[in-house]
């Protein structure tokens, strides 16, 4: 592979953190209002921040399944990054990273690190969360049903 490799990203500020998403995974960027009716994933909780319900949404095509929206917060713009702007994290630091991020970052002198969202892992983590949540609800419903059907 040549040394002129570059990637295109959409840069955003989400819950106080600078993030970037590979543009090849994004089919369009929508406003919050335009994203009504789309299944939305908010990466904020995985980044140790509160969920936000405003800003822009990236429409992402998962490897399997229908498109989903990923909340980006405030979009900063679209950029092309060369390898000089990408910094892999050492293994020991990577272990401390949230599962939804690549083990590397972009770096700009005015903002510092820009964390790279891994869409596939984000969707996987989100699906796992939903599964856990529905399992919990199912158990609660079962328990309630048992209590109601117990003779007094």
């Amino acid at each position, binding site marked *: *592979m040549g040394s002129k*490799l*570059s*990637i*295109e990203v959409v840069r955003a500020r989400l819950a106080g*953190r*600078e993030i970037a998403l*590979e*543009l*090849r995974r994004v089919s369009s960027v929508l406003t919050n209002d335009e994203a009504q009716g789309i299944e939305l994933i908010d990466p904020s909780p*995985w*980044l*140790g921040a509160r969920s936000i319900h405003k800003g822009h949404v990236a429409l992402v095509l998962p490897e399997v399944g229908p498109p989903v929206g990923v909340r980006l917060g405030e979009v900063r713009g679209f950029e092309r990054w060369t*390898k000089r702007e*990408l*910094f*892999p*994290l*050492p293994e*020991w*630091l990577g*272990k*401390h*990273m*949230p599962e939804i*991020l*690549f*083990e*590397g*970052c972009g*770096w700009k*002198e005015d*903002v*510092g*690190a820009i*964390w*790279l969202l*891994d869409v596939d892992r984000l969707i996987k983590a989100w699906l796992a969360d939903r599964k856990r949540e529905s399992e919990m609800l199912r158990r609660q419903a079962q328990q309630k049903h048992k209590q109601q059907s117990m003779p007094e």
Partner: protein
Amino acid sequence: MANETDDPTIPPRLDEVLSQVAEETSEFDWGDDGGDFIESEQLTLLQFSRGNQRYAILGEEVREVLNRGLSTELPGAPPHITGIMIHRRQVIGLLDLDIWFGLDPHQRQEEPFERVILVERETLLAGILAGPSTTIVHWSSDLLDGDVPESIPGQVKRYIQAVKDDDEGAVLLLDITRLLEDAAVG
């Protein structure tokens, strides 16, 4: 691995580009300023302060001493890993000894001007936050054979190889291997 082809219409994958950069930048980019590290056979140490405590690190374990530049908090990291910075195209994780040693937040002092001591053990490289004053000192190797006083708190004692007393109090020689194994690798 469709992107390994030379087809310019297929955009490269971020993970592939990242691993390629990782391979290419596995060593420090020293630029044109040289920066050869001269190893010494002497028991030479770097002494520094953090808050009210003075520490020392074996010279062979110190890669560089830097002024603290722009750093960014690492999402999801434990509190003693205060963030990352970039130096010579390497990502440096920053460790705060006060937090790792469980020092009471009220005892912690904001350093007006911080330095970062880059320490290295085998493949592990990390930055230890230090106060503004760093000096080179020489210790007799006999000090390494002495016992670490009981008065040093347990959570700190585990990481102390030796202690030297002088007019200003105790200087604690850090066991960098153990510190990095516990605080960095976890």
